Every structure is written in C-alpha cells, then in structure tokens.
C-alpha cells in the first residue's frame, strides 16, 4: 500500500469528483470533499516522511519504466509542495461549507465541489509527476476547473474575469507546449530527469534550446503571474467566491512557481540557465513587480483586490529569490512560497468571514468592523503583519533570508530595495487596520456578528501557523534549504 502512495494522492480526488456529480446532494458532496482532502493531506505527510527517510520516490505508471512510461517522481521539493497544496485544500474545505452555501446558488453547489476536487487533482498531479507532458495535462485539468470555479462568483464581473483568465491561461499553457515540443525535438524524451541528462551535454548557445527556454519561461510566467504578465490575477481573485480566492492564492500560483523551478534547475540546470542570461531579466521584473504591484495595492478600496495586488508583489519576492541562483536565494524563494501560502490564505479566509457577515469587502462598508468581528480582524492583523515581514511572523523569515541572499551575491542595493518595498506593504495593511479599528461604525446595525466557528477555526489555524513557522523554522526553512541544495546542486 505505501508503495502506491504517490498515485493514490492523485487518484482519490480524481475518482471522488464524479461521485459528487452522481450523488447530487450538497451535504454528501461536502462530506466527500472534506474526507478526500484530509486523506490527501495524510498521504502527503506520509510521502514527505518517506522521502526524508528513504530519498527520492519513483513510481512507474502501469509498470512501464521511465523514460518510456510516465513516471511520478517525488523528491524533497515536490513532497514539500504536495504538503502545502493538500494542507490548504483540507483547511479550505473545512472552511468552505458555510461560505459556499452563502455565495453559490444551491443547484450549483455539488458541481462546485466537483470542480474543486478536479482542481485539487490537477495541482497535486502537476506537483507529483516526473513527465513534462503529463505535467501539461494536469496543468490544464487544474486550469479548466479553476476557470469554472472563478466564474461562479456572485458578481457578473466574475464571468469576464474568468474569460480573461481563460484566454491568458490557455496562451500560457500553449507556450509551455511549444517549448516542450522544441525540447522533445532535440532530445526525443519527455521525462524530466532524462531531459536533464540529455540537455546537460548541450551548449547553451544552441538556438533551439534558447527558444525552448524562452517559450517555457513566458508560458509559466503567465501562469504564476510574474509582473507584467499578471493582468488576469487581480480580477480573478477579486470576483471569485471567497473560498476559491483563498485556495487559489495559496496554491495555484505556488505550483506554477514550482514548475518554473523544475524547468530552470532540473531540466535546464543552473549552467545553461546562466549561460542564456535569463536570471537578470527575471530579477529586474521581480523587483519592478514588487514595487508597482505594492503601490497599486495601496490605492485599492476593494480589500480582495488589494490583497490580490499584494500577491503579485509577493510573487516578485519569490522570483527574486530564485533569480539569485545561489542556495540561500533559492531556499529563500522556496520558503517564501510556503510562507506566502500560509499568510495569504489567512488574509483571504478573513476576507471570506467578512464577506459572509457583511456581504461586501469594500473599505467604505467596513468602518469599525473590528468591534463587531474582533477575532476575524485579529487574525487578519496577524496575516497583515506577516505580509509586512514583522519579526516573529513567517514573513520576517523569508525577507531575512532574501536579504542574506542579496548580501551573499554582493548586491546590497537589492537588500535595500527589499526593505523599501516592505514599507509600502505597511501602508496598505495599515489603511485597512485604521478603517477597521479607529473609525466609528456607520450606523447602529447589530446584525453583523462574529463568523461561525467552522470558519473561524480554519482561519485561526492559518493565523497561528504564520506565527508558529515564524518562530520554529526547522521544518520550513530546513526543508527549503535541503530542496534548494538539491536543485542548485550544492553550488555556492
């Protein structure tokens, strides 16, 4: 049984999805979703344990050995991402029950859970697979269900947001396939490890290789919303149902970053990647993204939109870490990937609680909300402090690590820029805190009270996690360093 864990992780949600459609009962569908996401979480814990004790897990689909068959290959990097995705999936499905009942029409609820399970399948599959084309298939499974999930938002603008994402997401995925086709043309293989072996003998100046790297980078940058290819993200996050915003913000872009890591470091390897001179480009875009997106976030009155722009900025931090190409930088990128998933999930879950009680997340409707929903707001404040990077929260750990990486690479100005962009985060987080704590409530409306317990508990789990991992970094930073050493190959 334990030998089949890598495939069970993906098969269980995949099989549960049609079950939800057949049974057509929203309570049963929620029960199935919860059970499946908890099982996935348990499996990913077991996988991480196996990987840490036994090393790389390799699972051959149907017994066909790699490079011919499809291989699921799990090392420290993806075991770590699997854990994030399934943990967020479990948290969100506990949280979702009330929020979804409120935000989704009754007749669509079972279909909603189906799409959610398919999305989970796709994201876990992208992470687990060791076959680059199989990765594309899982990418489309998760993307198609994501478009459907976003379009279920209450506001009619959810439809246009979803359409826009569909166009840009498909362009991105097709670019990925083009890049992959060029690599296949040169090597005759699609297995990631095999690709690396065949490409490592090639010279970085081969034009097909450069074109492939360019296509893959642009395609994945669209998917992970690297500035300036982030245009689909703010609308998609703003108008999607609250539960889905929290889920996507914490997982979808993170998995895309993981795929980017695989392409850069496992398929191409640091050397070819360096020869083609892509790292400075990504570094530049990441830094511009950090500033532009944070600045735009300051001027938003819709809180979900503000947090969405903040996500674009945070992706800038992750990509900045990766573009240093040294172990400290890449581990900073990976650790921020987890940390950002935790804190952004907490922030968006708090938005969901407010949406549930108030029915709006616009600043002007939320004067004095902290008096009515003290627990929700307290959790949001913790998430907000993490976004800024205050010590004792996870945000501090990643920024500290990033600054160390900048100093190691002898780029002091960049360390300064990281600090400067954090100050902008103070501004936008403070704007909402001021409205929530220091403005008098508009009227004597007493109908708004604290969110139900089944929403508050997941919210507080994420909020406390963002403090816990800010103090005890053994698990997060330790694993991230291990993963970074493996990816960069121990080079300083």
């Amino acid at each position, binding site marked *: 049984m334990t030998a089949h864990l890598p495939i069970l992780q993906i098969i269980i949600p995949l099989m549960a999805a049609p079950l939800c459609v057949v049974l057509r009962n929203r309570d049963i569908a929620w029960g199935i979703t919860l059970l499946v996401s908890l099982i996935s979480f348990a499996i990913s814990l077991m996988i991480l344990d196996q990987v840490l004790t036994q090393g790389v897990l390799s699972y051959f689909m149907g017994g066909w050995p790699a490079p011919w068959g499809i291989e699921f290959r799990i090392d420290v990097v993806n075991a770590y991402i699997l854990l994030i995705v399934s943990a967020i999936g479990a948290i969100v499905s506990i949280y979702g029950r009330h929020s979804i009942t409120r935000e989704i029409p009754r007749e669509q609820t079972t279909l909603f859970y189906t799409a959610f399970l398919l999305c989970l399948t796709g994201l876990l599959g992208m992470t687990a697979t060791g076959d680059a084309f199989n990765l*594309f298939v899982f990418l*489309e499974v998760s993307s198609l269900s994501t478009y459907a999930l976003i379009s279920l938002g209450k506001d*009619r603008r959810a*439809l*246009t947001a979803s359409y826009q994402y569909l*166009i840009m997401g498909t362009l991105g*995925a*097709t670019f990925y396939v083009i890049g992959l086709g060029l690599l296949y043309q040169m090597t005759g293989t699609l297995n990631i490890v095999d690709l690396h072996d065949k490409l490592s003998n090639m010279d970085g100046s081969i034009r097909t290789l450069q074109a492939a790297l360019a296509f893959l980078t642009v395609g994945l940058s669209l998917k992970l919303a690297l500035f300036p290819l982030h245009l689909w993200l703010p609308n998609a996050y703003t108008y999607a149902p609250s539960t889905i915003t929290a889920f996507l913000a914490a997982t979808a872009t993170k998995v895309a970053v993981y795929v980017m890591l695989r392409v850069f470091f496992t398929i191409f390897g640091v050397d070819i990647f360096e020869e083609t001179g892509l790292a400075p480009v990504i570094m530049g875009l990441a830094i511009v993204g950090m500033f532009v997106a944070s600045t735009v976030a300051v001027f938003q009155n819709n809180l979900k939109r503000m947090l969405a722009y903040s996500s674009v900025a945070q992706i800038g931090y992750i990509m900045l870490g990766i573009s240093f190409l040294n172990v400290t930088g890449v581990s900073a990128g990976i650790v921020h990937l987890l940390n950002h998933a935790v804190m952004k999930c907490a922030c968006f879950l708090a938005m969901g609680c407010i949406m549930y009680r108030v029915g709006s997340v616009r600043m002007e409707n939320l004067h004095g909300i902290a008096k009515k929903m003290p627990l929700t707001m307290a959790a949001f404040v913790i998430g907000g402090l993490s976004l800024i990077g205050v010590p004792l929260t996870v945000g501090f750990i990643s920024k500290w690590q990033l600054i160390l990486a900048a100093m190691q690479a002898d780029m002091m100005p960049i360390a300064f820029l990281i600090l400067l962009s954090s100050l902008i985060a103070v501004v936008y987080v403070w704007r909402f805190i001021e409205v929530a704590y220091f403005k008098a409530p508009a009227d004597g409306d007493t109908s708004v009270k604290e969110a139900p317990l089944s929403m508050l508990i997941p919210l507080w789990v994420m909020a406390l996690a963002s403090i816990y991992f800010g103090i005890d970094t053994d698990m997060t930073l330790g694993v991230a360093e291990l993963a970074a050493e493996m990816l960069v190959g121990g080079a300083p």
Partner: protein
Amino acid sequence: MEYNEILNPGLYNYWVVIFLMMVGFYIVIARGNLVKKLVGLNIFQTSVFVLYISIGKVTGGTAPIFGEGISVFSNPLPHVLILTAIVVGIATTALGLALVIRIRESYGSIEEEEIHAQEEDF
C-alpha cells in the same frame, strides 16, 4: 542561418506553423469580439499541433503500423501527445464558449468595449 537554408523546402511546414501561430496570436490580441478571440486561440493552438506532427515525421517512414517488409516508421509519440492536446483544446473552447453565453446573458453584449463601458458605469 544561410539564405538557402531558410528557403529549404523541408522547412516548409515550420513556416506554416509560424504563420498560423502569429495569425492566431494577433487575432487573440487585436479582436474585441469574445467569440473571435476564441477562434484566434484555436488557430494558435492548431499551429502547435502542426508543429508536433512535423516533429514526428521520419523521412521515408510510413504510418506506424506493423506490416510486411516495412522497417522505417514515423514516430507515433508526437501524434499521441497531440491527440491529448486536441482534447484539451476542445475542452477549453467549450468552456470559453459557455462563458461567452453567460457573459452575453448578463451584459447583453459580446463586444469587449461595450462590456468595459458597462463595468465602468457600475
């Protein structure tokens, strides 16, 4: 690259690929009609199908089916891969068109400009 190399008739399908790719991409960017955008997206994806099928061709090879006296086959793998990609493309188009219908229902238009104008009024 030499001038002769560019005009090499063996590269003819790659020129078709590039042409289709650019046409599709241009339609996606330049057209404001939501259905036309999806048509452009389809042309863009089709160009990739042609690219993969070109990669699979082996000079002098026949269809990849066993038979008497045949020893050279075209590579069947790209065909199989692209079969998957075609299915994905159909799913995307179907979902896109479904969204267009819903957009038309709630905005009464499928022209990007008119939709934007309505959103700004909101």
